[in-house]
């Protein structure tokens, strides 16, 4: 009993937060075989699971610093084919949040993270997503100022980019969620 409660490995934390048990994985690799992004990952999903099983601090850090967790798009192919029904998408969600919290996020994946952050900030003030602001914000963060500029006129001409954001009535409440989320966790 006591040995378990003192366990501070990533695997133990994962289990506590999500009830996903890394020990369930028997390394068949079916997740990695089906993952559309495994070629973009330095550690495919099955390798992440193995690293978790080692409960080795060095491996734990490698996971949190990996590109894998940011490249994963939560398509859930892994889960739908896993013979042990291990919720790997949930594992990835947990790792991403952990990675940010511990300041270990992968430098090559900064843009992905910037995009997600820009996305959330966009909602924070208006309650809804405003794509122009999102992209503008993202460009400022990523310094990819010219990316996709070719698309803008085309999108505007097709009415796909409303210039003014929609703002919901109870935007205070939504921005309140952001505040609460800073000191709540579950």
């Amino acid at each position, binding site marked *: 009993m006591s040995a378990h409660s003192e366990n501070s490995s990533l695997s133990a934390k994962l289990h506590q937060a999500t009830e996903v048990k890394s020990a369930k994985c*028997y*390394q*068949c*690799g*079916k*997740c*990695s*075989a*089906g993952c559309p992004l*495994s*070629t973009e990952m330095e*550690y*495919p*999903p*099955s*390798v992440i699971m193995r690293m978790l099983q080692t409960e080795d601090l060095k491996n734990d850090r490698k996971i949190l610093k990996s590109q894998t967790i940011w490249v994963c798009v939560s398509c859930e*192919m892994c889960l739908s*084919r*896993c*013979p*042990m*029904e291990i919720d790997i998408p949930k594992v990835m969600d947990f790792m991403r949040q952990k990675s940010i919290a511990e300041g270990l996020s992968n430098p090559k994946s900064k843009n992905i993270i910037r995009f997600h952050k820009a996305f959330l900030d966009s909602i924070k003030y208006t309650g809804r997503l405003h794509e122009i602001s999102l992209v503008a914000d993202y460009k400022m963060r990523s310094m990819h100022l010219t990316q996709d500029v070719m698309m803008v006129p085309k999108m505007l001409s097709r009415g796909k980019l409303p210039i003014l954001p929609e703002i919901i009535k109870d935007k205070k409440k939504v921005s309140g969620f952001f505040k609460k989320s800073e000191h709540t966790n579950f």
Partner: protein
Amino acid sequence: MARIGVFICHCGENISATVDCEKVAKVASEFPGVAVSVDYKYMCSDPGQNLVKEAIIEHKLTGVVVSACSPRMHEPTFRNACAEAGLNPFLCEMANIREHCSWVHEKGDATTQKAIDIVRTLVEKVKRNEALAPIYVPISKTAVVIGGGVAGIQAALDIADAGHKVVMVEREPSIGGHMSQLSETFPTLDCSQCILTPRMVDVARHPNITLYTYAEIESVDGSIGNFNVKIRLKSKSLDEKVCTGCGACIQKCPVKKIPSEFEQGLGMRTAIYVPFPQAVPNKPVIDRKNCTYYIKGKCKVCEIVCPTKAIRFDQEDSFVEVQAGALLLATGFDVLKTSAFPEYGYGKYKDVIDGLQFERLASASGPTKGEIRRPSDGQIPKKIVFIACAGSRDPAKGREYCSKICCMYTAKHAMLYKHKVHEGTPYIFYMDIRATGKMYEEFVRRAIEEDEVKYIRGRVSQVYEKNGKLIVRGVDTLLMGQPVEIEADMVVLATAGIANQGSEELAQKLHVSYDKHKFFSEAHPKLKPVETNTAGIFLAGACQSTKDIPETVAAASGAAAKVVGLFSNDMLKRDPLIAIVKKSPPPVYSSCTGCFMCIQVCPYQAIDKEEIKDRNGNIIKTISHINPGLCQGCGTCVAFCKSKSIDILGYNHDQVYAEVSALLNE
């Protein structure tokens, strides 16, 4: 009035080193009802035993307590001694003052006091013991073997050779089972049919064996020694006594495109058919679902061409009843179909086949005469991907267990393919290679090293068809999860071995338990591997869990030995420490209320209903009844029964109650 003798053993110094035996004997002599109490150095020695015997006669003892070692050690010794002196052996109890007292406590008053307490408890118990006699049940020396695969064949021949009658019941038109479908067997690669068919013929010819094919168990009553088995003989639409098996009817039958069960759908058969050329018996049956006459009312070609006029269109199912002393279950297994696999195309790709289908392709008597050809277009495949654990070790879509035989047959398949198609490349996706039998690992190494089978450790995620090829998307987990994509011509799934169709229904008819996967359960996982929890019903082979041929045959011989052992006596002698439903004089007859919940409790199906009738045969009351042949004496029903109408001999209410009070009240 009770006259109990108490005999305190020193066990050399094993007991007397920490327990004051003289004191125990002295105190015990003052217990109410104790006629004599003595201590002695070695009670189990001849003089010690004589001490007991003489005391029984001299003091006219009504009960004996031997305070010595564990009853698990010497209870039979002292009970025999009592019997020799004319005291019913069940009036002797042992007080365990060695293992439970002298050996586990330090020398001292507390230890001696504990020994006294133990002796007092057993004295109070033995006062309430009853004289019991062993139970004898007569035995019908016929065994019914259900299933005619290799397990059933082996068991039937073993029992029949030992001189007992055997009735074999097989569901299909021929015996032989899955083994007759196999090409060559691992690890020796000897031809399966070559070793099996002579045994099949032996079964048919054996004077002690009666064979019923195309037959099923209708019902089973009775219990060990005396089962009454009703067998349904499905109509074959044929008089077997008249039929010579010439095969003219089969030649001329106009319905020729029925997928053959024996060929796993890769070959065709006619509506009147024998499953395969070496079938036993080699006489056809009419498959009524597909016969034109039964569907449309016209045809009867077989009747016209039959030289001996053996066809009987109006034949109905018939029944035979067999009195049997034992039943032997050997109903075998089935394989999961390829349609169980969504990611491999739900069975829609013709060239994705299962292992049993590959056996037929590789078999010299199979639909391709032993050439490996694709079912879709008959081409010889240049690349075959074998996928192990297709459905095994897969709680999500298949079965959580390991099917045990797939690693070996997959290695064999890859090897056979390589032997037949030298330029071909076999790939095997696997998770672990489990090759734990004799010469098994060597066999797998040979496949890898000599036959160049490409083993890839990883599971396949998806199989799809493109331009006539099967694209197999897998992974190599030994290369950090590197994706592997193979354009294969054929894919063979080592699908999970599963319980045979109808096994649950059969288990319910026989009252044997089965696991959640519908495999029959053995009575004890280690010590009773071929028994079921229903006395007199035995198990062999893959109906218990998937097994390879050597294991199946070993289990079959084991089960046969159990049957032969049972049949070696005319009467079955059983320990009388069983439960009974208490009776009382009229008008109550029994305090049993007939709620019959004890029937649910009993692990042995030993409880049934008994009608109490008056002189005119009118039913007064229906109460529970415990079959002494089946009850094993666990006593679960005793503790459950609310009206305390059930009691158990040897541990009855009065005895255990007295033990509790005696233990606590000095």
